[in-house]
């Protein structure tokens, strides 16, 4: 595992490592969802590359101290992608690999949606869409008052941007010039009931966020180098908050699930898991 002692990785050096970590995280996501028997496959897979880029290619964290005061903070506003976050937290060493297979079970620290009280590395409890950006802003304002150089990251879904509260938070973050806040939109274009464009169009996202006073960047959300580079660009922007609109594919990495709204809230069956793992190059057990 890459050492994650308060430093910024050079993506050119670490790129192959990040890509492999993302592959492994996808395997973990599929296994834990299969074991749980329910959960959100599509939106977890679309977010994996973003999360790996963040946690292993950008954020300041200490592997041996999840509560390090100077750490960067992450809020999973699209809380239903919890399996992807848990997979990354396990790779960081904040969770034990065994924990992953307890997802959604009674007394598991891995609740269906992230619970900060129960799970190391989860900064804020989320699951009800629209609230994570406001919490991230609160964290950012609090750390600015304490003159900490830590940054705050929030991952939102594109369907989530239909929530009015997102725009309350957008307005407030620009008003308070929260330059230590970066939002990332997992722009996979699908939500439970179908295409975002058909259910309730949120585009043009870049223009909307710019109109709200944000620095908006647009990248391919599965291009590890592009994501890490955008995160660095956003961190260097000192005038106010930034958002990275990451164009992604729902269910990315598994053709059974790619670009299907039906993959939103369904866990892979045993057969689907077998097919998916083969596609991800995972050696079958026995």
């Amino acid at each position, binding site marked *: 595992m890459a050492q994650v002692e308060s430093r910024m990785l050079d993506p050119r050096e670490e790129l192959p490592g990040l890509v492999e970590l993302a592959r492994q995280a996808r395997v973990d996501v599929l296994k834990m969802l299969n074991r749980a028997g329910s959960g959100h496959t599509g939106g977890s897979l679309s977010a994996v590359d973003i999360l790996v880029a963040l946690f292993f290619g950008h954020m300041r964290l200490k592997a041996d101290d999840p509560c390090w005061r100077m750490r960067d903070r992450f809020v999973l506003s699209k809380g239903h992608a919890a399996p992807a976050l848990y997979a990354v937290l396990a790779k960081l060493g904040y969770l034990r690999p065994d924990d992953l297979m307890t997802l959604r079970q009674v007394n598991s620290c891995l609740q269906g949606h992230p619970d900060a009280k129960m799970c190391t590395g989860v900064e804020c409890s989320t699951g009800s869409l629209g609230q994570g950006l406001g919490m991230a802003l*609160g964290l950012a304002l609090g750390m600015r008052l304490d003159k900490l150089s830590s940054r705050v990251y929030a991952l939102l879904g594109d369907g989530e941007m239909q929530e009015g509260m997102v725009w309350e938070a957008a307005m*407030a973050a620009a008003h308070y010039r929260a330059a230590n806040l970066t939002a990332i939109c997992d722009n996979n274009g699908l939500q439970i009931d179908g295409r975002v464009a058909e259910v309730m169009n949120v585009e043009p996202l870049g223009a909307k966020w710019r109109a709200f006073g944000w620095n908006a960047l647009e990248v391919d959300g599965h291009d590890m180098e592009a994501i890490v580079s955008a995160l660095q660009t956003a961190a260097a922007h000192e005038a106010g908050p930034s958002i990275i609109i990451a164009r992604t594919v729902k269910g990315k990495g598994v053709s059974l699930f790619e670009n299907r709204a039906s993959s939103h809230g369904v866990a892979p069956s045993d057969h689907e898991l077998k097919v998916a793992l083969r596609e991800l190059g995972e050696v079958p057990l026995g």
Partner: protein
Amino acid sequence: MANEMATRLAYGEALVELGRRDQRVVVLDADLSGSTKTDLFAREFPQRFFNMGVAEQNMMAVAAGLAHAGKLPFASTFAIFAAGRAWEVVRQSIAYSAANVKIVASHGGVTVGPDGGSHQAIEDLALMRVLPNMVVIVPADGVEMKKVVETVAQVQGPCYVRGGRIKSPVIFEETYQFRIGKGVCLRQGKDVTLAACGLMVHQALAAAEWLAKERISAEVLNLSTIKPLDEDLLCQSAAKTGCVVTCEEHLVNGGLGGACAEALGERLPVPLERIGVRDTFGISGRPDELLEYFGLTPADIAAAAVRVMSRK
């Protein structure tokens, strides 16, 4: 004439004192700082004051984030917006994660007055009381509000504190010590228990005076903490008097009356009457007119006392 003070003004003053002592204190408001009196804090500590605009939901989420960053946020707006508009955010982002956010709402109850039913929170105590982890307090006067602010700052976890718009008589001495979950017996009696919160404590004391002239001995309890309710004090009193009248500026459902009915039903079933608003919304009018209109006067409490005693 007793000394009078609005609980919201007491809150604003207490917040400034707290802010001087405790650097963790930050205050959020949603464009009502002049009414909630957080403007006093804003003037003295502009760096630690965040006006979130007319966006109560986001205010609660930002408050939760500030708490997660180690701050001690007080979030204020009118009770109807704090408890009503932002309820699900309070549930998810504050109560569910036991975030250390203190929600202090002003303008609770019908004595908001002329602004009318849209602005009169008569269901906020019920909404907040059902939330796990949430402490719910309705101070009886300005002195108790100041003590409550000092106390909630020292405990970890979410609290909802309700203040009122109008001036009300000061009941407590400055030496009064408030404790979360502990009620106070303000007047001993043996025939009937009057359990009240907020400005209805004053109304209950006035009712007890009136009843005394009729040779009825009423015990008056200030149950300012609605959750956790001081069930022991309530049941001790009810065991002595044999009947209870609850008095609140709230629907009779879900607030103090509901909490007392639940506790007495489980532990000590005695005849109970609930003074409060009955399944209707508020209307415009002067506060004193509205107290009369909704049956929240000392005369109404006394009449309920006589009724409940006849059911013993």
